């Protein structure tokens, strides 16, 4: 009886994992076509290999499921484990064309960049980026765009027949806002919003690219890729100089807008799309984000001003850009990694905190998330009120997130749990960096960047870094993006499986 139950569990998990991998195979057709258009024949073969390997994996998985697997009921554990497994296998398969292209030192480096893309982190180990073909650049940015919306969101939109239990898969990817009663329709809304922004963003950056001197064709691809990385708060860019490559305040200003929009909750975008503009000013996440960005910028600006590194306008352009890039979890840079070392400790600390805070829940951003910071702040207010009021007084606290919500213990518990897990992960990663021989401040900076899925780098992330550290970063990016629970459920399932054997 117990074995039969376990077999059914496995069937459900494998069925849904196979579906998600099938989605990945379909997606690889886009860089394949790009490579063919630009006559990059060798790269086209690499993608064909990737597609075939993905199909073989999906078909092989299907052999282990019964034809009626889709009728089986999906539980929360199934959803979480399927998502964890799909991300793990997805990263390995996505790394195949990377590795075959010859732009990576090892398969581990290729898997690192694939995970960095999926998790919208933006740290890279790719070598000789300025000579990377169109096909690979398309794949890099597509991965990060897909990662921002969610691999499962894509699969839900196109590949699932039934909708029962689909929310469990969707939520496994750390997206807990159900915009519509049906998870499949919610996924479609997320894609609808993202595609609208993609069209507008690419057009704006395309035109701006031509104004700043790029050729129309190059400007189109730069615009498309930079938008994909901006909207998904990913931080990849087609050239090694990242955003400094463009030497344009206008280009940076447009990016400001899209990285901020990308870090907002999809539910908020949907509400604003419906014409409910008031929500924008009342939402706890927007208020929390606005307060933390401004407070941290005061700290960074004050410190940079004192150290005299940048004159006035340059201070704003460099200081605010990197603060916003860090806070939204994007990781775009307009200075070189080694230049961060000249920032004063206080400015450094401000940026580090911003990276850990992150953007909104149910967005493309990582980190603690503005909603949780808002909830913790409301909890502090509630506790202070309790202290100054008579013991018998009933103190309640409310916050506004799409609707007025009464602050309950479950909200506080959930927010604190994730924040504590983030801090623990940040501490472990800092210790690992320090153990590998990096100075403490560098270790903390890079750890905050990996934990918050940001992508700003002070120079630790490089092909020459120890393999063990690369593997740890892959794991941290993964758990950070899935917000721990899905990965924990996956590990628990494996442990349970081994115990039963």
């Amino acid at each position: 009886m117990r074995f039969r139950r376990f077999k059914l569990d496995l069937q459900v998990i494998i069925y849904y994992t196979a579906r998600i991998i099938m989605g990945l195979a379909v997606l690889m057709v886009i860089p394949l076509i790009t490579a063919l258009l630009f006559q990059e024949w060798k790269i086209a073969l690499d993608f064909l290999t990737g597609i075939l390997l993905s199909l073989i994996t999906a078909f092989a998985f299907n052999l282990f499921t019964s034809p009626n697997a889709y009728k089986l009921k999906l539980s929360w554990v199934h959803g979480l484990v399927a998502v964890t497994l799909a991300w793990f296998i997805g990263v390995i398969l996505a790394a195949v064309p990377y590795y075959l292209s010859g732009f990576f030192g090892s398969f581990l480096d290729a898997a690192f960049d694939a995970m960095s893309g999926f998790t919208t982190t933006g740290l890279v180990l790719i070598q000789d980026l300025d000579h990377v073909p169109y096909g690979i650049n398309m794949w890099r940015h597509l991965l990060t765009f897909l990662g921002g919306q969610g691999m499962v969101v894509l699969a839900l939109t196109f590949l699932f027949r039934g909708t029962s239990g689909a929310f469990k898969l969707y939520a496994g990817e750390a997206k807990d806002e159900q915009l519509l009663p049906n998870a499949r329709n919610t996924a479609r809304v997320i894609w609808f919003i993202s595609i609208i922004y993609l069209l507008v963003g690419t057009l704006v950056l395309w035109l701006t690219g031509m104004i700043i001197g790029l050729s129309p064709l190059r400007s189109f691809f730069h615009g498309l890729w930079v938008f994909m990385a901006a909207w998904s708060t990913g931080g990849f860019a087609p050239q090694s100089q990242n955003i400094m490559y463009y030497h344009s305040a206008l280009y940076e200003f447009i990016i400001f807008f899209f990285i901020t929009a990308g870090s907002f909750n999809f539910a908020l975008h949907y509400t604003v799309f419906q014409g409910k503009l008031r929500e924008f000013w009342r939402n706890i996440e927007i208020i929390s984000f606005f307060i933390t960005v401004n407070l941290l910028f005061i700290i960074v600006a004050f410190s940079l001003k004192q150290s005299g590194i940048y004159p006035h306008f340059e201070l704003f352009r460099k200081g605010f850009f990197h603060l916003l890039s860090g806070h939204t979890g994007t990781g775009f840079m307009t200075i070189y990694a080694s230049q961060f070392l000249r920032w004063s400790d206080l400015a450094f600390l401000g940026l580090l905190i911003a990276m850990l805070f992150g953007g909104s829940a149910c967005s493309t951003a990582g980190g603690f998330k503005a909603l949780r910071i808002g909830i913790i702040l409301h909890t502090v207010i509630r506790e202070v009120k309790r202290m100054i009021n008579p013991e018998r007084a009933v103190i309640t606290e409310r916050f506004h997130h799409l609707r007025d919500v009464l602050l309950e213990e479950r909200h506080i518990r959930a927010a604190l749990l994730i924040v504590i897990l983030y801090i623990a992960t940040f501490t472990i990663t800092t210790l690992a960096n320090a153990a590998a021989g990096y100075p403490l401040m560098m270790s903390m900076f890079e750890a905050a960047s990996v934990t918050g899925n940001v992508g700003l780098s002070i120079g630790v992330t490089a092909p020459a870094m120890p393999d063990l550290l690369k593997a740890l970063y892959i794991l941290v990016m993964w758990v950070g993006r899935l917000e721990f629970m899905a990965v924990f459920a996956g590990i628990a399932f494996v442990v349970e499986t081994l115990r039963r054997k």
Partner: protein
Amino acid sequence: MKQGPKGLAVGLAFLFQFIFIATAFAAPVSSRDLLESGSKYQGQLIEYEGEVVGDLMQRGEYAWVPISDGLNTIGVWAPSSCAKKIKYIGSYRYRGDRVRVSGIFHDICRDHGGDLDIHAKRLDIIERGRRIFYPLELSRFVGVGILGLFALLLYLLNHFRMRGPS
């Protein structure tokens, strides 16, 4: 006569300074040195050498020329007349022209929003770029063919299993 030794001393000082500057900047400075010791080179006339990569971005009478020395890429702000000498730009399909730039280094450029850059006074082509060819190996085609057959086999297996009595 009294001015003699003093004049000689000044002359020698200038000569030594010239020799020092000439030896210091005769060899191109690497991007690593420029990035790590930026303040040391701030406002100095330097020589930088590398491959032109990416795009030439024309801005009025000047152009941005990204130049990579293999370690990092640095933006060079060059007069259009200099940029016009460039024929090949490095990409997947081309090895870009190798150039030597003589110009003023800016660790934090006030003219360009605080970017690290070099304002070129002179740009010389050292070596012309070329087209890169990537040979297609037969083994890769065979590998893809085998994977394709395997994928087809698995698909058919699944297909008949779905249609079979279960």
